């Protein structure tokens, strides 16, 4: 029997339907302490006083951890990709979003851990906050991040991600019509049914066993290893069975803090976020601000596109520079546009840091560019299927960053939907394939962008 292509049952299906699948929260470790976090009540403030002694003095409280206990408090999760670190594991001196962790405690019961958090003395000096990415560049905007209000560390220390292709001015000069629009998708929650959860056991060998709901065992192990400044063989991550993630569990949200508490207390600890923590303090999908202007001809060719993107990163960079780069690489969508001018900024605001979520960086640009394509079709009075098929990327066309497409399926997927809807396409559109451009489908403005698919 062939295994590939077969409708085989889930490997773990029986476990799921009988309640036997073991998630992190289902693991019972005797003597485990409960973890709770002191989180910032403010969107932006200086920390004037932080006194954990009253919590530490409580009977049944076994450890309190603040930034002072973290060997490397600021670690760039994507430093391998050239993105430096900016986010402290536990706040030091300043808080930049409501819900930011300042201290974590481990106590014998959940209620006691909550009481210990309440016992910590925290005094804040409120600072002006910034929430609107469009005002981040204003001269009078509050300064909210040590790097300024936007990320300044792209290649060659540029403060934005750029794409340039062709001759954008010529395209806009030549256009019959220029269609402009603004697109703003929302921040949304990942809402995995399993909230962030972690258990850490200090082993007699001096190792830590970390039961984790991470989507990325080795990535998260690297993060813990870096913060603790310990080699990888100090850790055993146990996981691989996750109650939903959707990108949010790429954040290593609990493992490092629990490890520090386990080491400090010498006892196993567990931290299961409440749903409210998940809704209010966990990272979200980013809200985006995108402006597009397309230079188009009256017969429906897109000659050029200018685009400005502001990526609302929240308070810290986390994975946002990566997401914006991915976004920029796909800002022409499923179409070939030979002349481009893209500028994108990762903008900091005093909201919860945003992170990866299903479709990271591209969900936003798909919404913007595809809604824009529908608008262009309306403005020009052209059938939206035909506009798309005409500009669809094809074998030999090149992407915004100069990569030649070898097997694009824009044409067949559009045709399949048109067929299924009973949408009549003219003969030449029905007959279209992804094959290399020629004839009427290779107008002069698309000649220079052609590449050689065999080069890949």
């Amino acid at each position, binding site marked *: 029997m062939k295994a590939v292509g077969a409708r085989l049952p889930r490997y773990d299906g029986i476990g799921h339907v009988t309640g036997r699948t073991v998630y992190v929260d289902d693991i019972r470790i005797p003597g485990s302490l409960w973890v709770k976090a002191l989180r910032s009540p403010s969107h932006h403030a200086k920390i004037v006083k932080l006194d954990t002694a009253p919590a530490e003095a409580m009977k*049944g409280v076994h450890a309190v951890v603040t930034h002072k206990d973290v060997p490397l408090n600021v670690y760039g999760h994507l430093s391998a990709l050239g993105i430096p670190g900016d986010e402290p594991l536990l706040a030091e001196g300043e808080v930049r979003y409501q819900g930011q962790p300042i201290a974590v405690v481990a106590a014998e*019961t959940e*209620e*006691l851990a*909550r*009481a210990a958090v309440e016992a910590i003395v925290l005094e804040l000096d409120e600072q002006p906050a910034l929430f609107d990415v469009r005002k981040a560049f204003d001269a009078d905007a509050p300064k909210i991040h040590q790097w300024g209000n936007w990320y300044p560390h792209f290649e060659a220390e540029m403060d934005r991600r750029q794409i340039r292709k062709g001759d954008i001015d010529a395209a806009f000069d030549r256009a019959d019509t220029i269609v402009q629009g603004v697109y703003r998708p929302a921040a949304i929650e990942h809402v995995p049914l399993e909230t962030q959860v972690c258990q850490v056991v200090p082993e007699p060998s001096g190792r830590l066993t970390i039961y984790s709901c991470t989507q990325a065992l080795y990535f998260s192990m690297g993060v813990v290893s870096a913060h603790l400044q310990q080699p990888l063989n100090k850790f055993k991550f146990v996981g691989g069975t996750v109650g939903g993630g959707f990108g949010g569990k790429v954040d290593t949200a609990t493992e490092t803090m629990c490890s520090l508490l386990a080491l400090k207390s010498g006892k196993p600890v567990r931290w299961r976020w*409440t749903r*409210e923590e998940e809704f209010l303090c966990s990272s979200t999908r980013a809200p985006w601000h995108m402006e597009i202007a397309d230079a188009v001809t009256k017969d429906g060719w897109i000659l050029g596109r200018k685009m400005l993107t502001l990526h609302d990163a929240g308070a810290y960079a986390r994975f946002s520079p990566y997401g914006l780069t991915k976004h920029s690489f796909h800002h022409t969508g499923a179409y070939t546009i030979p002349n481009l001018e893209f500028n994108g900024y990762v903008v900091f605001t005093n909201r919860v840091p945003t992170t990866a979520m299903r479709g990271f960086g591209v969900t936003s640009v798909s919404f913007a560019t595809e809604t824009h394509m529908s608008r262009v079709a309306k403005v020009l009075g052209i059938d939206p299927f035909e506009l798309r098929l005409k500009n669809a990327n094809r074998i030999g066309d090149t992407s915004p960053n100069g990569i030649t497409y070898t097997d694009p399926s824009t044409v067949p997927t559009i045709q399949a939907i048109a067929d299924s809807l009973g949408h009549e396409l003219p003969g030449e559109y029905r007959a279209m394939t992804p094959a290399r451009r020629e004839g009427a489908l290779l107008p002069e403005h698309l000649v220079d962008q052609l590449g050689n698919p065999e080069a890949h």
Partner: protein
Amino acid sequence: MSAAPEVLLPSSADEAVSLFGDGADVTVVGGGTIVLPELTYGRLKPTRALLLHRAGLAGISRNGSTVTVGATTSILDLSRERAPVGPCAANIADLEIRSQGTLAGNICAGEGPDAPRGDLQGPLLALGATVRSAGQGGTTTEPLEEFLPKRRSRLLLDVSFEEPAAGAFAALGRPHTHDYTALAVSAVRAADGSIRLAATGVGWWGTRLPSAEAAAGDPEAAGTAALADVTLHDDALASAWYRERTLPVLVRRALAQLEESA
């Protein structure tokens, strides 16, 4: 660390009333759907908790045209009643919450963290319902409107109303089942032909719409008039702007339903 609360488990209505006393330091637990999360999240730390599930306060009885609903009657049971109570109850949460949540919990709930609670206040206000409750000063009966401001300090025993000649309920569609209804309007034609209207979602508890009632003969005018009866607010579900736009629509739709059911 707080001591575990004293748990009171009355097995009759009289015992419940006696244990409730003047209500000081008593947290009433009906179905648990509102109180339990508050306990779990550590926001509510009761010293005494009064559990009503065995107090014999559930049930719907009819005496002529008078309907009396016991405090712990489930919302699911109410969903089988005629409009406006039935459709309003059926619109609350999902099947499991409806079967667990109670009339009294719905009416007496405090403000929700994100939006108003107490969807059933609307239809019961429109019906001119009266509330029998216990607490300081003994057992009293009063109109729901007068009870609502003190609902957090008394033990609701039952609610009574006259069967209407016709009833209607119009609500904004809930995007999904976990959501509270952002705005709803209940309409009643009483046996004497008079029309009464009430809304929920226009403030932190239900509100009668007297100006709209006065104009009920002209649904368009009634819708506009309703705006004079309410104070609109922003919350997680909808803005005051949106409520201002849609309250007249719902008043009109409720009156149209009432007309159709006549």
